[in-house]
Every structure is written in structure tokens, then in C-alpha cells.
């Protein structure tokens, strides 16, 4: 029996969403066309935008549909940087544990646009230090174009103090973006209450389709586009509307908020079961970010004396799917920059696995995984040559 514990990578599309996508795929009409067909398609699309806006707690016009979370992150970081640069602001502040969709554009801005990137450290629990933010802003606020800190980390699930960051930044009028791809639909999130300038969401992490992301961008904060063309989405993201995926995204959002509390509680209880099982059966293992507030579904555990790619292979062979963090384009496992930033060594970072639980998991999934783990660990330790 296959046990899927990689919901943070992608999670099954909810049935209502699949149906909505199929329905919309059969509807003729470019939503930008002015005739009856176009208007009909546009109507569905705008309805979807309003549904999502309601659950994100933003104005519908603040939603910009993109092709992925990565595109939304790139658009936000580069766009807000360029907007700031026009006013003499050249500094980009990001946390050391951002997803590569933020880290790599930040590096690109350094290499190609002369940006100065400042990395915010995290402590051993994976939390950024608000004093560092305060300190930084008190000295260099008028140089900072954008601060980008993820809402919850994709590898550890650790939730960052976003509203506190915004509160500090707003004293200085500095724009704040947050990648909320992992936390949206998992923990309560309100764009307007957080007071963010921009926020990134992704469809397939919450039971929606692949290939659809959202940049929530505050009204009045227009930024340069990455894609130029037909002028869709406030002229910030041109390209024919992907109506089926947008409608599917909205359907998934509706579904998830229908059962938000019970889903969260269920997932959280499975996480507790997995974590306490690991602690009981494997006393030298430890959970990363244990004392921080975390998403209900992510368990990042270090198993000393093993290598995570060995663990993954052995678990995969037993039918358990989990993750080792991010691999490079050739498929090679690298020590996680997130765990390294939390104080891990290369070796301990390479001994860590992420299990991510979703609503479709059962108590039996967790029990079976815990049953398999000790033997897998024994094998993996023997196979560890380093």
C-alpha cells in the first residue's frame, strides 16, 4: 500500500476542483474577448477571483494570477526592487531560509541589477530575529526596496512573525512581501490584517491545479512587469487568462475553507502521532523547529548517522513517499540551506527527512510508517559510508 507523505510538494486535487477544471476546459471563449463567449468566460473568471479574494481577505483587484508560485515570487521581488530602485532604494532584505523562488531572484538582482541583498538569520528553531529587523530598519530603512520573508517554511513548517515584521516596516514605509505558498489554507491568513504589500499563493499546494499561482499585490502598488503583452492583470502579468485553472483554484479554496478547522485538527493530530512515534521508537532522532509555531502537517526530522537520500530510497521501496528537501537540476540531494541556517552541519542536514501530511492521510498511514522506520534506519546507518 502506498503511503503519500509529501503533501508539501504537491497534494491531491480535490474532486470538486477536478470537475470545475473539466467544466471550464469545455467552455469556449477568451476571457479578454468582448463578445458573448468572452464575457461568459470572463464572468466565471471574475467570480473565481472574488471567491479567492474573500478567503484571502483582500480586494479582488489585488489578485494577480500567475503561472506558478515561483512566478509570483519573482514578480514581487524583482518588481518591488525596481519600484524601490526608482526612488534610490537598492537593498533587498530576505530571510536565509526562503524558497529558491526568492533566493535565486535575489541573487540574480545582485548579479545583474546591482542590488545589495541582506539575509536575515534564523535561530535554532528556524525563527527570524525581530531585533535584527528593527536594528536594520533603524539604520538603513531608506535604502531598503523590499523585505521578503516567507509566511511558513516549506521544509520545517516553522511559521514566521509576519505581522510583527510588517508593523516594524510600516513605521518606515518599507514594502513587505511574504511567500505564503505553504501556509495558505493550512493556518488562518488575512492579507489585509497582516498589512502586507504583496503575498504569494499557489494552487496545487491546497488541492487546486498545477500551473496556477497568485501574486496578491496591494492596490496602488504597481510594479514593473516581467511578462509584457496583452496587458492583463493590471498590466503586471500579461498572457491569456488560464480560466480552467483559475476556476479550479477558486473551487479548491472554497472546499478547503468549508472544512478548514476539522482538516487542520486532523492533520495536526497525525503530525503529533508521527512525532511522538519517532521520539518513542528512535530516541536519537529529533524534530527540527520543535519549539516554534509550525504548520499542522510538516514534520522535519533528523536521523543521526544516516543519509537522507538512502532513507528516501528505502522508504520509497516500502511504499512510503517523503522528501529530502530540494534537489538540484541533476537530481542530486544538497544539504538543506534551511537546516544549515538553523545551525545544522552539512552532515546533520543531510540526515534529515521531511514528512508532510495532508487531509487524505489516515492514522494507519502514520502507524505503518512508524512500523517501517526502525528497520529502514538500521539499514541506512549501515549504508552510511561518510
Amino acid at each position: 500500500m502506498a503511503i503519500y507523505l509529501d503533501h508539501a510538494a504537491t497534494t491531491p486535487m480535490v474532486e470538486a476542483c477536478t470537475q470545475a477544471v473539466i467544466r471550464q476546459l469545455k467552455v469556449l471563449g477568451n476571457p479578454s474577448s468582448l463578445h458573448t463567449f468572452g464575457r461568459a468566460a470572463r464572468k466565471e473568471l471574475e467570480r473565481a477571483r472574488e471567491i479567492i479574494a474573500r478567503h484571502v481577505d483582500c480586494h479582488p483587484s489585488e489578485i494577480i494570477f500567475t503561472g506558478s508560485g515561483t512566478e509570483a515570487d519573482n514578480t514581487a521581488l524583482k518588481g518591488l526592487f525596481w519600484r524601490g530602485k526608482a526612488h534610490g532604494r537598492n537593498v533587498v532584505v530576505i530571510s536565509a531560509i526562503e524558497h529558491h523562488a526568492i533566493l535565486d531572484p535575489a541573487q540574480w538582482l545582485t548579479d545583474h541589477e546591482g542590488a545589495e541583498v541582506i539575509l536575515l538569520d534564523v535561530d535554532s528553531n528556524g525563527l527570524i530575529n525581530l531585533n535584527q529587523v528593527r536594528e536594520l530598519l533603524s539604520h538603513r530603512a531608506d535604502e531598503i526596496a523590499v523585505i521578503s520573508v516567507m509566511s511558513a517554511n516549506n521544509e520545517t513548517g516553522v511559521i514566521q512573525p509576519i505581522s510583527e515584521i510588517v508593523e516594524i516596516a510600516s513605521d518606515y514605509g518599507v514594502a513587505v512581501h511574504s511567500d505564503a505558498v505553504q501556509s495558505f489554507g493550512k493556518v488562518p491568513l488575512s492579507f489585509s490584517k497582516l498589512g502586507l504589500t504583496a503575498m504569494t499563493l499557489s494552487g496545487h499546494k491546497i488541492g487546486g491545479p498545477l500551473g496556477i499561482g497568485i501574486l496578491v499585490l496591494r492596490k496602488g502598488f504597481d510594479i514593473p512587469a516581467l511578462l509584457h503583452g496583452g496587458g492583463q492583470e493590471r498590466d503586471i502579468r500579461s498572457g491569456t487568462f488560464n480560466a480552467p485553472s483559475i476556476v479550479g483554484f477558486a473551487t479548491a479554496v472554497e472546499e478547503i475553507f468549508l472544512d478548514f478547522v476539522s482538516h487542520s485538527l486532523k492533520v495536526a493530530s497525525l503530525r503529533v502521532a508521527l512525532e511522538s512515534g519517532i521520539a518513542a521508537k528512535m530516541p536519537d532522532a529529533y524534530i527540527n523547529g520543535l519549539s516554534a509555531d509550525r504548520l499542522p502537517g510538516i514534520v522535519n526530522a533528523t536521523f543521526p548517522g544516516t543519509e537522507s537520500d538512502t532513507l528516501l530510497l528505502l522508504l520509497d521501496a516500502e511504499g512510503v513517499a517523503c522528501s529530502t528537501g530540494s534537489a538540484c537540476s541533476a537530481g542530486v540531494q544538497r544539504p538543506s540551506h534551511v537546516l544549515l541556517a538553523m545551525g545544522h552541519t552539512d552532515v546533520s542536514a543531510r540526515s534529515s527527512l521531511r514528512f508532510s501530511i495532508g487531509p487524505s492521510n489516515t492514522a494507519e498511514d502514520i502507524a505503518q510508517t512508524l512500523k517501517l522506520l526502525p528497520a529502514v534506519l538500521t539499514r541506512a546507518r549501515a549504508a552510511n559510508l561518510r
Partner: protein
Amino acid sequence: MRLIAAMSGGVDSAVAAARAVESGHEVVGVHLALSSNPQKYRSGARGCCTIEDSHDARRAADVIGIPFYTWDMAEEFHAGVVENFISEYAIGRTPNPCLRCNGKIKFAAVLDRARAMGFDGVVTGHYATTQEGSMGKTLHRAVDASKDQSYVLSVLSVEQIAGAIFPLGDTEKVDIRKEAAARGLAVAQKPDSHDICFVPSGDNAGWLRDRLGSEVGPILDQDGNKLGEHKGAYTYTIGQRKGLGITVPTSDGSPRFVLKIEPVTNTVVVGAHEDLAVSTMYGEKPIWCGPLLDATARRGFVQVRAHGQPLPCEYFFDGSLLVARLDEPIFGLATGQAMAIYDDDRVVGSATICETAQ
């Protein structure tokens, strides 16, 4: 058996994996990432070849229908193969990194890891065969003499041979390509790799210059007369004739050849062709692919290059060095190369050539 198939992304290892599956084994495909190129933010960036090869290996595994993973062996490869390659050149030798990779990585690090994980052995696309007999499992030449790779496997111990599966040894290379096409493997017509994998430009001398510098030294004749200068003795190979950069001609117009490379004094010694003659070679750190040798002289063959001829000889082990006395002298033999001993088509063992005599 449960086997790990080492899949390079080439045609041979893909067909080898497919044949292992067909023989009823449970096979898991593994691509070895051997080079690392750390960058500031994304340390996974690698040479384009690795990305393409890893992709090709993955697609072959998809077609064959086996699980596929990439194993990062960059650290082991660097420590075990690349550093050795540099240090051997630095002491005036000419190493063969492919042998080293087989002995230290594919049938060591990979095989050990595979065994610990519960696998029984490692499948590769090498052209060689094994036989089970009174001596246990022994290593032999491939049917296709032009593709035979038993030489680069002659560094495998009995224990390593026991865990090695070579499904291609009984087939001609042209038939492997046909078979790959028939199996729907996209790599059927992918060209063979020739260069040293970690020197993608193929420019060995340039690659070594970046690591060993280019200190100017003298080119001398055997009487110690200076004939010219070189920029790094390591860029020369014993027996080399072309590109010596000598402006002083010989009295009779005969060509000169590199006879000796002396790293300590950074000197290259050149001389006449007949001075290259080697009749006896000595090898250190021997590895036995079957029963241990003793001081009894036996008749057999020695091979000193990957696709070299088997040279008739008398061989024995004097307790510290493997010795081969050739029936006919050969010309230009670099130290650092492996001497592989064959009893007919069976690989007896090998050693690293440390000394030669006329």
C-alpha cells in the same frame, strides 16, 4: 537478486540495466553525480553534461520501468579519483582515472552502500564477463575484443568481483546499439564518451596547468645538454614525440622522444626511440582478481593500456612487486599506468607500474 544498476546516461549501462531486469532481477537504477560545482546560493548547479546525462539515465530507467535515484558521490570521487589524478601527474606519472573510479567508486563506495542497503550487487555496462569455476567468480575478457574493458576492471578484488554483474560482455557493441533501439531507449545512438569525465574540455594539459602551475623547466638530452624549455613537466608523457618544442635538431635528423619525467627537478629528458625500449616492468600495490600470485614464474599476457594489445610475457610476484618480463620489448611505457596480467582471457590481477627496465 536485488541489484543496483549504475546508469551513466549512456547506451551501455541502459541496456545492461534492461538485461538485468529481463534476467529476473529486481533492479534499481542509480545515476552517480561525480562532479560538484558549488555556487553561493544554489550549490546543486553542475556541469551541463551531468544534467543531460542524469536526464538520459532517468528516461532510460522510465522506459525499462525501474525506480531511479541520483547518488551524490562527488566527495568520494574527488578524494578517490581526481586528487589522485593530480598527485600522480605531479610526481611524473600517467594515471588512468577510469580504473581508479571502478576500484574506488563504482565497485567500492557504490557496492558497499548497495550491500548495506540490502542489495546483492551492482550492474554496470562494462564490456567484460565473469565465470563461476573452481577459483570462484573470476573476471574475463568480453567477446567484443575491440570493446573489451576488462583492463579497467582489473583493479577489482575477489570480493568486488563477487558483487559485480556485467550483462554486456557476451555481445558486440553494434548489437547493443541495435538492442537499445529495439527496446525504445532514446540513448541508442548517443555517442560514446571518450574524454576523462572531469576534464570536459578534453584539454588535459590545460586542466592540469590550472592546478599544478606552469613552472618553466629544462628539456635535456641523456647527456644533460639543454635542448629547450617546457612549461610543466607533467604535460608530457613517456614516449611522446610531437609538441616537444625543441629547436636543436639531432645530428642525423632522427626524432626525439620523451624518455623520463623528473618532477623534483622539473626536468624532461628526451632521447632516441631505441632508448624507450622496455623489457621488464614492475608494479606496486597489486590487486588479485583471483588466487594470489607467488614467486613462481608463469606464462601469460600483460596489458598496459585500456585498449592495448595483450603482450606475451612471464610474470610473478616477488613478495612486494608484480613483475612482468616481456617476450618482445615495447617502446614508451609510462609509470602510473596499470599493468594487468591475463591468464588466457582471465584477469589475474593488476598493479601500478612504478619502474621499467630495458
